[in-house]
């Protein structure tokens, strides 16, 4: 992934900035410009919010066969995490043994290196999660 493309999503990936619908109050991550529930009524009413970064594991997998840019981390744990505000996201779980991860486990966001682009040597950063 090239630098400008990554840079455009930094507010979400660095700071967990998403959206809240001013019409129904529902939270979304990443940011959305329209609420899938309110449609037209949410136009112009989507507000920026920063998520607390705490949540729980919905499901997970231990990845043994990753894309090349992630090879030096393997095996690593990928998980779907439900934030306490409601939205779900996909992230790695770090700072614990893969076998200690379980469904329902409480986790919190931490800022880490995501991947290194071998060709250009660019390092990408963003959120991962660790046991709370």
């Amino acid at each position, binding site marked *: *992934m090239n630098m400008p493309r*990554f840079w455009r*999503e930094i507010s979400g*990936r660095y700071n967990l900035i998403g959206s809240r619908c001013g019409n129904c109050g529902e939270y979304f991550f*990443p940011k959305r410009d329209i609420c899938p529930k309110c449609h037209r009524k949410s136009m112009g009413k989507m507000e920026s919010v920063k998520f607390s970064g705490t949540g729980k594991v*919905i*499901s*997970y*997998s*231990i*990845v*043994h*066969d*990753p*894309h*090349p840019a*992630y090879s030096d*981390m393997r*095996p*690593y744990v*990928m*998980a*779907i*995490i439900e934030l306490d505000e409601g*939205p*779900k*996201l*996909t*992230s*790695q779980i770090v700072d614990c043994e*893969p076998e200690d991860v379980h*469904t329902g486990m409480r986790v919190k966001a931490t800022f880490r290196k*995501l*991947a290194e682009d071998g060709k250009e040597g660019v390092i*990408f950063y*963003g959120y*991962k999660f660790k046991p709370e």
Partner: protein
Amino acid sequence: MRDVAVIGIGITKFGELWERSFRDIGIEAGIKAIGDSGISGADIDALYIGNMSAGAFVNQEHVASLIADYVGLAQTSHVPATRIEAAGASGAVAFREAFLSIASGMHDIVVVGGAEKMTDIGDELANSVQAMAIDQEWETVFGATYASLHAMMARAHMERYGTTREQLAMVSVINHRHGALNPDAQFRREINIDTVLRSGMVADPLRVFDMCPLSDGAATVVLASADIAEKFTDKPVKIKGIGQASDTISLHDRRDITTMDATVYAAKRAYDMAGIKPEDVDFAEVYDSSTISEIMAIEDLGFFDKGKGGKAAEDEKIALGGEIPVNTSGGLKSRGHPVGATGVAQIVEIVKQLRGEADKRQVEGAKIGLAHAIGGTGGTAVVSILEAMR
């Protein structure tokens, strides 16, 4: 809306076809289907091509033009040729668009092809291209692979419903058993549960034999308005119902990762249109991109209650001779999964069965068949229900 029938089918051998190009296989399937249908080139009103990523796999875009040209339809009849991309559902969406173009009265005879050539680039790169069907910004960037997302569905299904590792393996065992009977299949070797459980770990709990392979292959069907179908074939197969639905592209945004709502909605639309219920279906081709996706499919399509799909595999209810044979072609796992071709290849298998031409894998008394295709991890689903007209 007019009734539409399949009047011709053609398929290439699936596999790693190193000696054959994208162009070669696309044309072979097209010519076979046109030959099978009894039409001539001048009868064709339009061409639809399902293809996920020829640009990334073989550096060629504009593939509808390419195939129209080399099947001989560009310079003389100048037919409209349209390429459709919906990841693994590309061929199935192309089939539905072709159906709509005839049902609407716009066209009378339409050719639908699906083709993908995945093995010209290395496995690592091919896997990355296939994974472009998942959300690059919010899944892939964080290290998610296509297999790891399926693995998360599998774990959730196992924890919630008690689905076992062995039950998942049985899906692969049954599909290989079926594929061994299909001369066009990529893998024609029977396996057992141990083969699956001893294969390399890809994304825990899923292993190499839980996942479909990278493949080359193409398939084509010819559709016609039902009222003229019998002029061309004595075994027309009617498209009785067809439904398409969407869901979020990211797996994490789904309401529930143990069910694919896109499948549920596409199926409901297809069943309503056909005026039938799941129990009326005699056999099906479903989207087994992984063993868990087949288990979820047979539940979401209404063949088995939610959470009972694993047991159905264990009890071989989905094997030939069982309650509802599923993936008699071998499915994605054994027949192979050239992404854009799969949705059309499924229709080819359904039509063979309904014509009674499926040879050693023939389903006895096959009258109604269902095809189910998925794009990505479930962002798109298409369900088609077919019935022999006589």
